[in-house]
């Protein structure tokens, strides 16, 4: 009781100056960037939506008039068990003028047998099997090599797609002819399977889905998801397709931007995927993703930050925003904690508790307020509300800690080149050539 009284006294006696001193990290970096700015952009996006309606209708008409061939590339290893469902999902698509290219990257299960059977029955247009695994990038490039379509859609075999997903994602190319790549709206299918899957579903709702709407509007959208991304074929040919991963999704997005193409996010093109269902699997996935920030932003594409003939302020801003908010602030948070510990030792419990409350309230308000902008979600919002307090721990501690480990591993040991996700034979070249 005494602690509560003291805590209430701490809160009520706090003026604006003290508040900004104790919680500057929350106010400046979390609240302003991820709440105020995003809300502003979303409102702007909503407001201007009606003015774009006619342009969207024109794009829709142009798509259905031209009926371009779309090449759907599905690279993967041991994905045979998912392929039949994927094919069924694609059969239901409203846009039918596509060719389905499946690349088997050295599977050692019955993927080859399943795919050859589907090919024989006309459900796959081109099936190519590599007896030796070459990695996801090479498999995707092989699909690209034989793609005949004007647009290329890259899919993951374990995902399913809404019936109008292909139509919606390709339509963007007619909305803006300078667009070279479009990312689809990836949602979590198995959100009820485990606590970690539910957290990820909320994360996809907010920071990924909503965050991508605003970053796309701002022109700084960074990662076209490998699970569902569409590309202009000539743009892919120009950049030579995918380079060695992990993190090839973000890499190809940067490559497109560097040669002058716009990259957009399309929330109406919905894809469902299974998220990792244990914290261990999630940690492995995020370690891989987070390492790519160091590898691709700070090493391979560092030239984006330097003056050159292809310099673009938008790309510069996108990189800076990415580096500041994901890398700098990640470490800054530790400094903030140290600062609080050393300078406000006696107030530490109150500051931490207040921080917890602020973040929780922020999550609740943001989650409910942003529901107005959230598109194409069938999941009941109420289902997620009880889990929102846990998001502070998930975001604030689990993901932050994972990210920190990833950054250290990549900065000091270049761990991404040792990731078994990519075959060693390719990774050693990538490391040597600083790719």
């Amino acid at each position, binding site marked *: 009781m005494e602690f509560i009284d003291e805590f209430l006294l701490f809160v009520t006696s706090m003026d604006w100056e003290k508040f900004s001193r104790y919680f500057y990290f929350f106010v400046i970096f979390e609240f302003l960037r991820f709440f105020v700015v995003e809300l502003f952009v979303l409102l702007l996006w909503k407001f201007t939506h009606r003015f774009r309606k006619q342009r969207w209708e024109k794009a829709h008409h142009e798509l259905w008039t031209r009926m371009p061939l779309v090449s759907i590339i599905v690279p993967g290893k041991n994905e045979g068990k998912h392929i039949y469902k994927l094919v069924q999902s694609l059969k239901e698509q409203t846009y039918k003028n596509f060719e389905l290219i499946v690349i088997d990257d*050295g599977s050692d299960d019955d993927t080859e047998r399943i795919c*050859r059977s589907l*090919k*024989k029955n006309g459900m796959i247009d*081109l*099936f*190519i*099997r*590599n*007896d*030796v695994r*070459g*990695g996801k*990038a*090479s*498999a995707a*490039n*092989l699909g690209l*090599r*034989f793609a005949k379509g004007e647009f290329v859609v890259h899919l993951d075999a374990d995902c399913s797609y809404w019936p109008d997903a292909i139509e919606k994602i390709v339509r963007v190319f007619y909305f803006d002819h300078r667009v070279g790549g479009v990312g689809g709206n990836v949602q979590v299918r198995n959100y009820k399977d485990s606590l970690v899957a539910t957290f990820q579903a909320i994360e996809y709702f907010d920071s990924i889905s909503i965050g991508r709407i605003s970053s796309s509007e701002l022109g700084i959208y960074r990662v076209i998801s490998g699970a569902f991304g569409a590309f202009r074929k000539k743009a892919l040919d120009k950049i*030579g*397709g*995918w*380079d*060695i991963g992990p993190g090839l999704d973000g890499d190809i997005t940067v490559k497109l931007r560097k040669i002058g193409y716009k990259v957009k996010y399309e929330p109406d093109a919905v894809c469902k995927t299974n998220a990792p269902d244990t914290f261990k699997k999630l940690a492995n996935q995020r370690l891989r993703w987070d390492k790519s920030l160091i590898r691709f932003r700070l090493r391979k594409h560092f030239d984006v930050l330097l003056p050159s003939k292809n310099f673009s302020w938008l790309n510069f801003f996108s990189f800076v925003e990415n580096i500041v908010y994901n890398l700098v602030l990640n470490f800054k948070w530790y400094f903030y904690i140290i600062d609080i510990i050393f300078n406000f030792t006696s107030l530490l419990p109150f500051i931490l508790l207040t921080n917890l409350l602020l973040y929780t309230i922020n999550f609740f308000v943001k989650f409910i307020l942003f529901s107005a902008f959230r598109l194409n979600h069938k999941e009941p919002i109420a289902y997620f509300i009880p889990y929102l307090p846990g998001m502070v721990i998930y975001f604030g501690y689990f993901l932050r800690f994972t990210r920190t480990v990833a950054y250290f591993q990549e900065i000091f040991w270049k761990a991404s080149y040792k990731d078994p996700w990519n075959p060693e*034979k*390719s990774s050693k*070249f*990538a490391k040597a*050539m600083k*790719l």
Partner: protein
Amino acid sequence: MQSPVIVIDNLQFVRLSLETGLDTTQIMAYDGVLIDSNDAPFVQNSILSIRRHHQPEVYLKPIFLCQNHPSAFIHIHALSDGQYIHDKDNTLVASKTRKIFQKTLELSESKPNSAYGAAIKKALDYMYCRENRILQPILDPFSIIGYSFPEMSVSFETHEEAQILDALDWAEKNELIWPDFQEKIYVCNQCSGGFLSYREVCPHCQSSHTYGEDLVHHFPCAYIGPISDFTNEKHEGLHCPKCNKGVHHIGVDYDKPSVLYHCNNCDTKFQDLYVKAKCLNCKNDVEVQYLQSRTINTYKLTSKGRHAITKGFELQNHTTDAHFIERDLISEDTFISLLNQDCKRSQIEERSIGLMAISINNHQAIAKEMGNYRFKKLVLELYDIIANELNPLEYLYLEQGHTFYFNQYLGIEDSFISIQSSFQERLNQLIIRNHSGISVSMNYQNISLNECKDGREALNKLKTQLN
């Protein structure tokens, strides 16, 4: 001119030459035959005429060649008993002739009632009289299957060589002969032709106008493409089109993970070339999994075979398909006789007896797709399925190899429906298990025997219904 009769060790031999010609009826009067000619066709025709003769006194006669015939005709040596070139051969010739004669005395005079039975008996008689000679297959470009059994081939035309295998299979199943594996061959499923042209074809348009290219994976930049992507006029060797670097060492900076084929005819790309076999005899073009597999064995007489030859044996139902022999198929006449009894029984005892028919509608299409041999196996499997459904009072008749007729006791509709559904279910399982990809369309009909005065009328009525 030499005398046409030669006596060797008190045995009389007739000497055949171009001058004397051949009169098979006269041969019976001699102990053996000497063929004295270097004219291979004459020798060949003479031997075949003797061995093809229907009377054992002629076709078993010892034949000796007075001149060398190095591989002029592959059957000459297999169907003759040796050479008589020098006087020093006298003893051997006389001895062989006497032994053959002694053996012929042991043969039973039973006469098989079919052409195939006669062919088997003839070959077995010949083997027995030649000291249990082994029946040897010979590579034969003139035989439709590529092999011939000279002792059997004399009874068949060259295009009927596959039927010899059926006959030998039957003799083997009856334990008259014992096989020793020599070769497994694949023959056309339509005409049993063994001369096949194997071709790799496009799985889409079946054209063999295809070419294949290695796919090359360049490790540093993850580019994969056909090897032609890596060659250009500017650079020697392989050069990556994506990163513009030389590609040097396989396994180090690149590998070849697979091969991709391209069809020049339909412009498709694929990795799974189909292998098809074109029969040079009937021009049938068939996927290799539908080819008929046959085993080529050498055969020797078993003790049961020797017993059958000397004591007589019944060779029944020698159809061209040895498999059907085992099923105790009844003839139409027998079936009608049995139906007559059922008609009377149904009228006298007022029992409800039905006559059912199950016909394969698309039998011609299936036979064309599967080949005759596999189609017959399918029919046999269907036969077994129906036969298993019948009780001891019911009997099954197979007409023209695709329509089954059988009588059915108990309530007609109920039992017919149940047997129909049971049959259809088992048929579906059979197709899935053994003949996937084959579409079988069945026609089920039934009538009541109470409405018919006799079996003939009932069968005709049902046939009309089927049509």
